[in-house]
């Protein structure tokens, strides 16, 4: 039970729940709430439903903004205890409520979504009333929006667990009551998962528990608060990457059996013309400079984490001027695999280890931006798909080194 719950309509049962996690989203939460209401009425009118805001006791009036949004669907406000923050903590409160309500389906949407339409609710929810237990979104994003997804989460999860989930940390999901109960067991729960690690944790558990997964086409691009990949990295990087690395340890028996990836079913095509997302500006020089600063700051760590041939190749890359920076995908895959191995063995502060990966990520993103600069979104998508194949082809590198160590002790 959350510390604070307001349930003005005294809802006790629901077939379908729309959950909106938030912290200080008073300015934005009304729009997704309204769209969720319209979607539930239009496409799930024969089912009992409720919209739940799972909040972190926001001081900016998120609760009032949510509860005062006019809707026909009843609403519930939940909050974590005072001082407890994190998207993962919000969602665990939501899952407990979904289970208590006996809901068959739960749709999760971000509170800062500007482009959501009622069809998003249909497309994230309808597959859950077919045979699917986990629905990930499929939307067009600008080639520089979602750089952690494009350069780490998607290729890594795809090559490791063998499932192509294009937006594994997209923020919008559809989940069945069955997988909610799996989530409530909180396998491998930790501080990273209780924050931004929650999305990749949910996706990984769905794959590893063999829950039928589908990707659902949203029809419109994801438009939310724009983020410069260099300026807005924040703690998200370590929470997402730390969770990916952490979960490799218990799920080793699963991923060891995987060699090549498979596609997932797709739902919801035929929604009209593709709308282009707004462009995302990237400070390439800033990315490059932070990459170079990492050389001075972390070179000794890199030498210990990376295999000698990988470190040598990386040093060649650090000598390239920005205009000619080329950070090969195979090198990037080997670096991530070496870091995953080091993370498994490392007994010290793992945050420090992940900090040393961030400049390499900036270098990689800078190279990605330069390579895709003149590409259309579709061409960049093909390029990303090609990168994923390189990760899959590099898998034997990981398989041979995992468990044997790699590089020196950090």
């Amino acid at each position, binding site marked *: 039970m959350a510390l604070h719950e307001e349930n003005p309509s005294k809802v006790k049962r629901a077939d379908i729940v729309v959950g909106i996690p938030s912290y200080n989203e008073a300015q934005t939460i009304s729009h997704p709430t309204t769209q969720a209401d319209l979607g539930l009425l239009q496409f799930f009118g024969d089912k009992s439903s409720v919209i739940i805001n799972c909040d972190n006791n926001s001081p900016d009036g998120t609760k009032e903004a949510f509860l005062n949004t006019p809707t026909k669907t009843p609403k519930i406000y939940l909050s974590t205890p005072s001082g407890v923050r994190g998207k993962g903590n919000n969602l665990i409160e939501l899952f407990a409520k979904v289970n208590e309500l006996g809901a068959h389906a739960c749709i999760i949407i971000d509170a800062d979504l500007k482009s959501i339409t009622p069809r998003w609710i249909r497309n994230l929810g309808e597959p859950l009333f077919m045979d699917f237990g986990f629905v990930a979104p499929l939307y067009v994003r600008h080639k520089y929006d979602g750089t952690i997804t494009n350069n780490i989460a998607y290729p890594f999860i795809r090559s490791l667990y063998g499932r192509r989930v294009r937006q594994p940390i997209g923020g919008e999901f559809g989940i069945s009551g069955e997988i909610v109960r799996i989530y409530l067991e909180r396998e491998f729960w930790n501080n990273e998962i209780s924050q931004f690690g929650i999305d990749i944790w949910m996706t990984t558990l769905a794959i*590893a528990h063999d829950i039928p997964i589908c990707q659902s086409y949203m029809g419109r691009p994801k438009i939310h608060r724009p983020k410069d990949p260099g300026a807005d990295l924040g703690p998200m990087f370590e929470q997402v990457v730390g969770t990916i690395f952490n979960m490799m340890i218990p799920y080793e028996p*699963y991923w060891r059996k995987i060699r090549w990836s498979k596609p997932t079913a*797709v739902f919801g095509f035929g929604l009209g013309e593709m709308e282009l997302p707004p462009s995302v500006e990237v400070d390439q020089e800033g990315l490059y400079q932070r990459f170079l600063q990492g050389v001075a700051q972390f070179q000794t760590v890199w030498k210990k984490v990376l295999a000698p041939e990988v470190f040598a190749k990386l040093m060649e890359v650090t000598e390239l001027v920005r205009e000619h920076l080329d950070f090969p995908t195979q090198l990037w895959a080997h670096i991530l695999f070496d870091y995953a191995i080091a993370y498994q063995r490392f007994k010290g502060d793992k945050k420090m280890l992940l900090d040393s990966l961030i400049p390499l990520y900036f270098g990689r993103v800078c190279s990605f931006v330069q390579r895709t600069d003149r590409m259309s979104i579709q061409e960049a998508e093909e390029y990303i798909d090609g990168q994923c194949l390189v990760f899959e082809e590099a898998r034997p590198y990981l398989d041979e080194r995992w468990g044997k160590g790699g590089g020196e002790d950090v």
Partner: protein
Amino acid sequence: MYKILVVDDEESIRFLYQEELTDEGYEVITAESGYRLVERIEEEGPDLVILDIKLAGYDGLDLLQEIRSRYYDLPVILCSAYEVFKRDIKTIAADAYVVKSSDLTQLKEMVRRALEGRTSLERGSDEDGGGV
């Protein structure tokens, strides 16, 4: 022996694929159109489908959706003479996309990978449910 269903409206392509893939040790059956394709899959139980995109009277990408809605895990490789269709987001539901060529090296490699992936996942499921 793995069974492969080749769906293509060009007889020469069906013949080429059948010859070459049979030589690789696969059992190959063919269909010249998308008519009753899902029923054909139901009857024949192929392990993999090679599907042309521009079929007379049928859109291979729509057929792919139809197959996926019934057969979640059946490997499907899209084949087309044109690279441009690869940019259609619907192709994401396929295991691979191969541009047609008289050299079948890439197609054979994609067939091998798709069937290898199928084998490893099935093995995972059989042994321990695929979980931890």
